């Protein structure tokens, strides 16, 4: 028994030693982008392809020699939709000067990071909470914030309502997750909808991980909703539409998805159910994304996967990668490649206004007063099992400033 214990201890010691060797392999001159992402759990459908996109774009740049020789290493960490784990992973690298930017997907993790990095000028990529635009700090959203996209949707709804020749106010409802994300779009979005003359019904919020949505849908039906804005990360929209189709509501109600809505994958699972759903998006979807030369090149040569496994969420990550590389290029130009620090990269982010993202999304709009990554969205519609654009890029209204922020 004694021998067993000792053998066991030796193995453990070796493993811990191995850990130490593994963790110290980054060459000192590189800089690091640390991605705290959730590869499982409710937001995996978005986080996984998004992280792949950033990773591959950075690899692609590094293969071409980096930014004037400076390489940006991608460090992906699975936080498993667990706040504690994300924070512990961040703390592991907090004092590492090579880490110049951090990516975060889940909203609660973002909130904690805000408390943690209050005094630091460390760039943090986050999905789209308007809060960060309202209180500009070190948090940068990928695209337009949720409330701006919602406001653009309200515009689209008012147009559609008029086109249909209906009178009175359209009844609009939000059906989303019962968490900070699910309520975010109405902070400003509500004020905008009221100004535009749409009637907002009480929101229906359900916990993440809900599998059936019948109760919420029947209640919306009873309240007479004309338009339902569905939040959550796909397959949430797919599941909602599956239940709505089964209840026969898709005829009566126009469902519109938030920009984390169904991708080609979700549509391939439930082509009939998703038919007719409108998706507001700040990144390319459907055939447009599949045909995009950069995405195609990255997916097939860097990721080395066939195009039929492609997910449009990849484009979000590539867009974030372009921002990062753009900022680092700017920093290198300003201070030289040996003086790239967190603070300098942060300053460069504020100068990214107008950065071209190769048509993957609108032009970058980061500036000293703006933290939202873009100000245009596109509307898509699921028709015949395919997701096709129904508008060109549309300017998003500013809904954030309409909310009374604390």
């Amino acid at each position, binding site marked *: 028994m004694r021998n067993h214990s000792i053998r066991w201890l030796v193995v453990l010691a070796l493993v811990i030693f191995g850990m130490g060797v593994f963790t110290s392999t980054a060459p000192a001159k590189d800089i690091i982008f640390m991605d705290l992402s959730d*590869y*499982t*759990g*409710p937001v*995996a*459908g978005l*986080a*996984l392809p998004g992280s792949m996109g950033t990773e591959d774009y950075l690899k692609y740049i590094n293969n071409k020699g980096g930014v004037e020789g400076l390489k940006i290493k991608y460090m992906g960490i699975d936080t498993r939709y667990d706040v504690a784990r994300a924070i512990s992973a961040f703390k592991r690298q907090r004092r590492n000067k090579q880490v110049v930017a951090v990516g975060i997907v889940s909203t609660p993790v973002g909130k904690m990071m805000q408390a943690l990095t209050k005094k630091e000028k460390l760039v943090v990529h986050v999905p789209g909470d308007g809060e960060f635009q309202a209180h500009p700090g070190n948090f940068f959203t990928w695209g337009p914030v949720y409330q701006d996209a919602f406001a653009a949707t309200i515009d689209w709804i008012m147009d559609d309502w008029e086109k249909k020749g209906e009178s009175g106010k359209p009844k609009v409802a939000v059906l989303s997750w*019962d968490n900070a994300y699910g309520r975010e779009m109405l902070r400003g979005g509500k004020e905008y909808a009221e100004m535009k003359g749409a009637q907002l019904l*009480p929101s*229906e*919020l*359900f*916990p993440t*991980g*809900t*599998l*059936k949505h*019948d*109760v*919420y849908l*029947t*209640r919306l039906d*009873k309240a007479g909703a004309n338009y339902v804005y569905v939040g959550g990360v796909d*397959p949430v929209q*797919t*599941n909602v539409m*599956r*239940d709505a*189709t*089964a*209840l*026969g509501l898709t005829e009566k109600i126009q469902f519109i998805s938030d920009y984390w809505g169904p991708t080609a*994958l*979700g549509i391939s*699972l*439930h*082509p*009939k*159910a998703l038919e007719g759903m409108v998706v507001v998006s700040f990144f390319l979807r459907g055939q447009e994304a599949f045909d995009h030369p950069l995405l195609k090149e990255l997916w097939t040569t860097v990721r080395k996967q066939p195009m039929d496994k492609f997910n449009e969420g990849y484009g979000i990550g590539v867009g974030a990668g372009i921002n990062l590389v753009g900022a680092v290029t700017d920093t290198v130009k300003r201070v030289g490649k040996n003086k790239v620090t967190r603070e300098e990269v942060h300053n460069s982010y504020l100068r990214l206004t107008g950065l071209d993202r190769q048509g993957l999304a609108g032009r970058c709009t980061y500036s000293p007063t703006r933290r939202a990554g873009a100000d245009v969205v596109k509307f898509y519609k699921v028709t015949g099992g395919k997701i096709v654009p129904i508008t060109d890029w549309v300017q998003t209204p500013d809904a954030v400033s309409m909310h009374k922020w604390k």
Partner: protein
Amino acid sequence: MTNFLQLLLLGLLEGGLYAMVAAAVVLVYKSTHVVSLAHGQLMAYGALAFWFALSVLKLPFILALVVALIFLAITGWFIERLAMRPLIGQPLFAAFLTTFAVFLMGDGIFQLILKGESNSFAKYLPGGMTSVIGVPLPTTQLVSFGVCLALFSGLAIFFRRTKFGLGMRATAEDHQLAQSTGITVRAIFSSIWILSAMVATIAGIALANVMDIYFPLPYVGIKGLIVALVGGLESLPGALLAGLILGILENISAGYLDPIVGGGVKEVAAYVLLLFILLVKPYGLLGLVRIERI
């Protein structure tokens, strides 16, 4: 009123799904007195195996079902052989915690296989909606409910009429007594795990037909456990009754209470019901009251 009727019927159909998951738990408890958390996973794997057979192996429906059942029967046997058998004679609570370990292990592998995506039978099985007494209801759920009723009547016949079922009931009464009448208790234990894994497979397929194969699916197993506790752990009719009650309660309470308290009622209704039942009738609605001695 139609709204109430719709919520009621939808709840009833959903309750049938919970009842099926509970049935698997009840089966195991009936003959081994182990409360199993592992069946949440067995159910999810059943659905996954069926989906794999349908969409990847491109088998016809019946053959896919057989493949899934066989695969899960083997899995159930493995769990019994590797995890439960060594614990015979140990406190029952250790066996409960072992099923909990199996649940976690299974959950890990499930997530590895799923890779953050979701799968669906939608392309292979009929969808659409059917009108019942003027209320539109999803066809998938009606089909699943039919499966539930068939499953419960099948189990009832099995336990009443077959010799094997009788042996299982005898084993449930007293292991030693059963052994001395010539019943091989070990074989009964193995076969009950195999049988319950197959029941879980059918439950999983019926569930996934309605809810898709998505990462929270195994956690419906916890609801199945609650249903089994509410109904009484030994009682199959209790599982059916409690399942239907829970389904209806969830939908009705969420339908009417959500706007008042601000959402999320559907998720806690089951737990509130459980706490209430446990305080009033600790052994469930139709469970046997145990008298303990020192």
